[in-house]
């Protein structure tokens, strides 16, 4: 089979357009760079428009692959259907959404979901740490969060708020640039913020992560490769996806690229600060692609367009596939 040989092939031609999440971008960039070493005449352009922005172009058929740090939404799925765009949904890595504190913050040892709600929602609206838990100092909480167009923000909102009436506070400092968040939190001892685990790994000397109480087991779990992979870092461990336009997938260069992506995803995920998914998930992904039209669709929406949640190993099964 061809993919075993990584000898350079110059005869394959074509252009692949990718756009979407800034969280997935490093993995796609690594894939594009590695792929070009084997197929030097295929152009791979990777854009960064955020998950929502990427889907906007993907549903119009402007891009071949969309990077996403959350599953597709019902509205986006409907737009795809309307435009006649069908797609393969392929999880490529785990990300542990990490809550971070200033290095000198010595009072927060762990947080429960209820406490996180107190800090981040308009309903909780805690102004000082003493309002979050009795005994914590009466210091003002400064919040740094990713921008509202990012999948990270959406995912956090989904986990913390779910279907309840409240919403995330509007008085947070938000930025699309995660380095701004790192600088913000590391510059103020009473600050809290959140972003993907990759940024925490690179800034361990400036920040510290918060252990989260797993709502089902009650254990306090810190985000590490092990806890993210085995799912005990719940509910903030999340899968990252690429969505491949099924029509583009008929093109040889896209097929080769997606195959390269799936085969090298575990290695690339680790190199970029993320966590590899279980091998069975990548194999499932391969099967979706191989099944052609039968493998297209999403696993994260039910027939009635309700959101389906849970661990990726539970959700990413062929019986959950909705076209």
């Amino acid at each position, binding site marked *: *089979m*061809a*993919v*075993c*040989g990584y000898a350079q*092939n*110059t*005869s*394959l*031609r*074509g*252009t692949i*357009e990718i*756009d979407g999440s*800034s969280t997935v*971008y*490093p993995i*796609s*960039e*690594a894939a*594009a*760079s590695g792929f*070009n070493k084997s197929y030097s*005449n295929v*152009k*791979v*352009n*990777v*854009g*960064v*428009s955020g998950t929502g922005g990427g889907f906007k172009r993907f549903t*119009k*058929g*402007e891009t071949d692959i969309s990077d996403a740090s959350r599953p597709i939404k019902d509205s986006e799925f409907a737009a795809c259907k309307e*435009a006649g765009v069908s797609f393969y949904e392929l999880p490529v890595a785990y990300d542990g959404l990490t809550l971070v504190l200033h290095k000198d913050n010595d009072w927060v040892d762990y947080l429960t979901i209820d406490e996180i709600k107190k800090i981040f929602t308009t309903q909780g609206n805690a102004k000082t740490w003493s309002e979050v838990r009795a005994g914590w100092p009466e210091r003002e909480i400064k919040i740094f969060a990713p921008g509202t167009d990012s999948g990270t923000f959406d995912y956090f909102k989904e986990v913390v708020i779910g279907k309840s009436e409240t919403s995330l506070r509007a008085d947070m400092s938000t930025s699309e*640039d*995660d*380095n701004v968040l*790192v600088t913000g939190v590391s510059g103020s001892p009473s600050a809290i913020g959140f972003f993907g685990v*990759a*940024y925490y*790994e*690179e*800034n361990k000397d400036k920040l510290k992560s918060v252990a989260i109480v797993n709502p089902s087991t009650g254990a306090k779990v810190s985000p590490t490769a092990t806890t993210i992979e085995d799912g005990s870092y719940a509910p903030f461990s999340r899968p990252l996806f690429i969505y491949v336009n099924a029509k583009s997938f*008929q*093109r*040889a*260069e*896209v*097929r*080769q690229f997606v*195959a390269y992506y799936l085969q090298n995803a575990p290695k690339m995920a680790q*190199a*970029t*600060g993320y966590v590899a998914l279980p091998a069975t998930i990548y194999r499932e992904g*391969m099967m979706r*692609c*191989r099944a052609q039209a039968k493998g297209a669709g999403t696993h994260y929406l039910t027939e009635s367009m309700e959101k389906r949640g849970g661990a990726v190993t539970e959700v990413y099964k062929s019986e959950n596939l909705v076209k």
Partner: protein
Amino acid sequence: MSEATPPDDRMELQEDPGQQDQRQQRRLRGSDGRMLLDQYFRVACIGIAGISVVILAFLLGSIIYQGVPSLSWTLLSGTPEPEPSEAGAWPAIAGTIWVCTICALITLPIGIGTAVLIEEFKPRNRLANRIFSAIQLNISNLAGVPSVVYGILGLTAFVSMFGLFGSLKGGESSLEIGAVYYDQFTNLASDPFLSMGAENARERYFLAPVASPSDPPTVATSGMEMFEYQGDQKVPVKISVFDPFGDLPSDPEELSLAIAADTIPGRISEKSWYYFSLPFGRGVLAGSLTLMLVILPVIIISSQEALRSVPSSLRDGARGLGATPWQVVWNITLPAAAPGILTGSILAMSRAIGETAPILIIAGIVYIRNAPQHLMDSYTVLPLQIYNWTSRPQEEFHAIAAAGIVVLLVILLSFNAIAVILRQRMQNKVR
């Protein structure tokens, strides 16, 4: 006579000249403190100017300190890679050169032409006068519009062209010149999602030319002649069609020319250097035109200033000798105003090089490994590449970003140096 001199006058004369000088100075300073105030003002001015120079020096120093160690040939000639030590900015540098060159080629004639119209061909009746002053007012106002607004304007006007020529869907535009379409077939061996005993054959791809992008997919038949890229050459080859689940040829060479019967080819296109399409899409041309909007008012205004500074005696003289308005403009006014026009234009161009916001809206942050090949090709520019690097978590990328800033600064400073040199040379010539 000497007796008649008033006593106080004599006293003054008897005074020591140095003392007199002192008193005069005291009167100047002491009476209302004017000179003292002047001294303070001067110190304040030096201080304020000093602050900005110190800040600039500090910024430059810190960038050079951070950036120079990462400057390397790889940075200038390499492609952007996820590994910081291999990362380069060549596609971004090439993109900047493309965008700015095309921007200059479009903007300079329009800008200078407009300035000549307004300055040299004064309106002759009231209606024309109204129109001219409306244009003038518009240009002055447009110079102050934030560049991000031009970016949004460019997105509708150039990228999608108000949707007049169909959507950007799938890159299939309604009007194209210079594109050749092919159906790309894979041989049995090269499909990563099929493995059917074709492992020992090498991977090959064949191209079948398609007349029009809307044609149905080519159906491969045995003996059909297709092209294969060998190196950069297109070589004709004869392919054969087999049922992937039936008997396959055993000879590896023959097997490598085999295409599965149900293969659906992928449509790709090859674009020549003169490729052109409507709407423009997110390519180089749309970016250049958007930058044109940003710097056009600047160029018009500076050209107007330059034309205005040409003494009217020159024009009158030429006209007196019977020159037509065209001759006056071409032979007298433009050459005399050229140093000023050039300086203004080059400074405007250096603004275009550093401009990020409109390009960010038009092109977005894109990871691109190739320099643009044609006017509609996707691209990235140096400021965006720097922005991309600074938003990475790894510290090493921040150092590379600093090195990118040094490259950008060198380009900008050399542009400004060219402006200064040209100005001096041409001024000497005119004299």
